[in-house]
């Protein structure tokens, strides 16, 4: 166990250093760098959404709204109030967390598709409000955002997200969330405060996607309300389902794969979206439970040895 952790730690540092070196020397061309950053941001978005949808079983479609909150708050802090980047990112995430609680409390009593539509509504409310706030540029958004997101920050926050959500899930708190997904009534009679855990998972998810929003804003120069439309929430959902509901490594792999696919398809010109959509359908038809199912890709799995845990054919309880 200890040796395994050490090995993983060394690998992570080596990977960090390798990419750092490669970007500095231009070994990774700028175009792939853009996609590298998108990958990191997508990983954070997908893993955090997986906590809500995959582990807690709450079909929420307002993820882009929280991303917007994180992005806007952090940009206000860095650009208008001259605060340091780290503080701005954390403040953006904290704001998203609070909004998550605010939104989660009333809506999480809803079930399945009703919850989906209510959260989608909240995402749209946030976007429409931003359209009307001149302080943040209205529909035009804010441009000229300093490029403060660098590889180090991106790497740290991506790892932090995975690490914390993994720790959360593999604890009694995480099990409480899963029990809510599997059988809410039984969970409640077993002493689980289901509302608390639903809201907790929801706002933790919001917190991390708020970080993703802040990183996004400080890499991409411009943020606009239109950037955070419900299509962005869908994108994150695609990654979660594609990776496997309730599999963190699945979400990571899917986020990388989807970003990569999107980048690769750029050469197909106007056909790129047609092909992307087609691939989406084909992948789902052939692998409906997602790449990983509910399993995790672990060190042991990769390098032989048997993994404990259930099979991949868990019935979905997400939206019943």
């Amino acid at each position, binding site marked *: 166990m200890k040796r395994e952790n050490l090995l993983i730690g060394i690998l992570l540092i080596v990977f960090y250093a390798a990419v750092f070196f490669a970007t500095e020397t231009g070994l990774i061309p700028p*175009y792939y760098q853009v996609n590298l950053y998108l990958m990191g941001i997508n990983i954070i978005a997908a893993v955090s959404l997986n906590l809500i949808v995959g582990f807690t079983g709450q079909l929420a479609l307002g993820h882009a709204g929280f991303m917007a909150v994180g992005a806007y708050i952090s940009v206000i802090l860095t650009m208008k109030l001259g605060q340091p980047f780290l503080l701005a990112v954390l403040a953006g995430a904290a704001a998203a967390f609070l909004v998550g609680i605010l939104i989660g409390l009333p809506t999480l009593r809803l079930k399945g598709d009703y919850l989906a539509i209510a959260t989608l509504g909240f995402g749209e409310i946030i976007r*429409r409000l931003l359209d009307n706030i001149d302080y943040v540029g209205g*529909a035009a958004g804010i441009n000229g955002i300093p490029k403060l997101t660098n590889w180090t920050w991106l790497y740290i926050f991506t790892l932090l997200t995975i690490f914390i959500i993994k720790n959360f899930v593999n604890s009694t708190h995480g099990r409480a969330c899963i029990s809510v997904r599997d059988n809410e009534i039984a969970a409640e009679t077993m002493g689980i405060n289901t509302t608390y855990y639903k809201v907790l998972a929801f706002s933790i998810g919001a917190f991390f996607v708020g970080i993703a929003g802040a990183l996004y804003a400080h890499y991409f*120069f411009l943020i*606009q309300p239109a950037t955070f439309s419900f299509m962005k929430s869908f994108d994150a959902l695609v990654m979660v389902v594609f990776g496997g509901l309730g599999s963190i490594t699945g979400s990571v792999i899917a986020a990388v794969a989807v970003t*990569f*696919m999107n980048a690769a398809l750029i050469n197909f010109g106007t056909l*790129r979206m047609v092909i992307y959509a087609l691939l989406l359908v084909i992948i789902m038809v052939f692998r409906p439970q997602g790449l990983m199912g509910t399993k995790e890709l672990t060190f042991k799995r990769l390098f032989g040895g048997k993994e404990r845990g259930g099979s991949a054919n868990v019935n979905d309880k997400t939206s019943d």
Partner: protein
Amino acid sequence: MKNNKWLVVLIMMLVAALAATGCGGKDGDSETIKVGVNYELSGDVAAYGTTAKDAILLAFDEINEAGGVLGKKIEAVVLDNKSDATEALSVATKLVTQEKVVAHLGPATTGATLNTIPVITEYKVPLITNSATHPDITVDPQTNKTREFVFRTCFIDPPQAIVGAEFAVKELGVKKVAVYYDNTNDYSKGLYKVFKEHVTALGGEVVAEEGYVESDLEFRPTLTKFKQSGAELIYIPGYYEKVAKIVSQARELGIDVPFLGADGWDSPDLVEVAGPEALNNTYFTNHYSPQDPSEKVQNFVNAYKERYGSIPASFSATAYDAAYLLADAIKRAGSTDTEAITKALAETKDFDGITGRFSFDEQHNPVKEISIIEMVDGEQTLKTKIAPK
């Protein structure tokens, strides 16, 4: 079960391989001058991106037929940014760093264009947009410095709105106006603000102002509200597809006051949808008029019509101008060095384009006359031309 996972991975690898070969094939021909064309070809505003791209390709073909530039042919590298600002940056990065284009045309919208600026600035590649009208495009609002590598062939929001306001108050003699703008569009909101300012400055009054959303179809509720407001003119700084519906629904509700708009109105579809009758007593400010009898304009209109089957809208005209302007600048620079081209672009004087003869001012905005078009029985007629102050 297991097999499916690998099948999926296989599919993705296939895509990657295809993509890789796709980009490999284009390399290595130094006999051409590569120009990046980064436009909205799918997604929400694909209609505008596509017309611009069409006009650019037409212009390049004409230039190449006439012998090209500096003895070389221009090769357009066309990529789709999905009407998404993030993608626009991705595309620009690919064009600039991988395709090594000497200049970058597009995107069409302000947001997407803004997002490409850091990249083209970093790699010192000039960019010309044909329809991003926001002032921030060419001037950094934080430093008030002109962005060295960014140019445009369309005029910016303020002059157009100022001319519109002047026309409304002075020529049409109205005092009370209503404004109906696209709340999700910076172009539209920009025009609305300047227009409001100037109408008020000229002694007029804005009695009602409302915003719609880009996905709206139904405008009657707001129009009914306008009807009660006593407005003598309704200003709609929006795109033709919405404008046509707004005007048509307004006339249906019995609103017969004049409508005034801006270059977003220009499209043959405006008449087709709203009908010639509803459009009587409407005006808009524009870059050019396809009715303009000048030979240059008519040649362009005919060539475009022949190739694409429709009358070119003003976005096509400004895009066409952007393409010719670029070719002209390369000629003047005498090289394909990006900084030389940029310099030549900045020095543009009296360029004779479809949308008028223009020079760039210090902020890289074209100084040209603004046409006011009146719709008469479905025909665009040139009412007057006003040079903004």
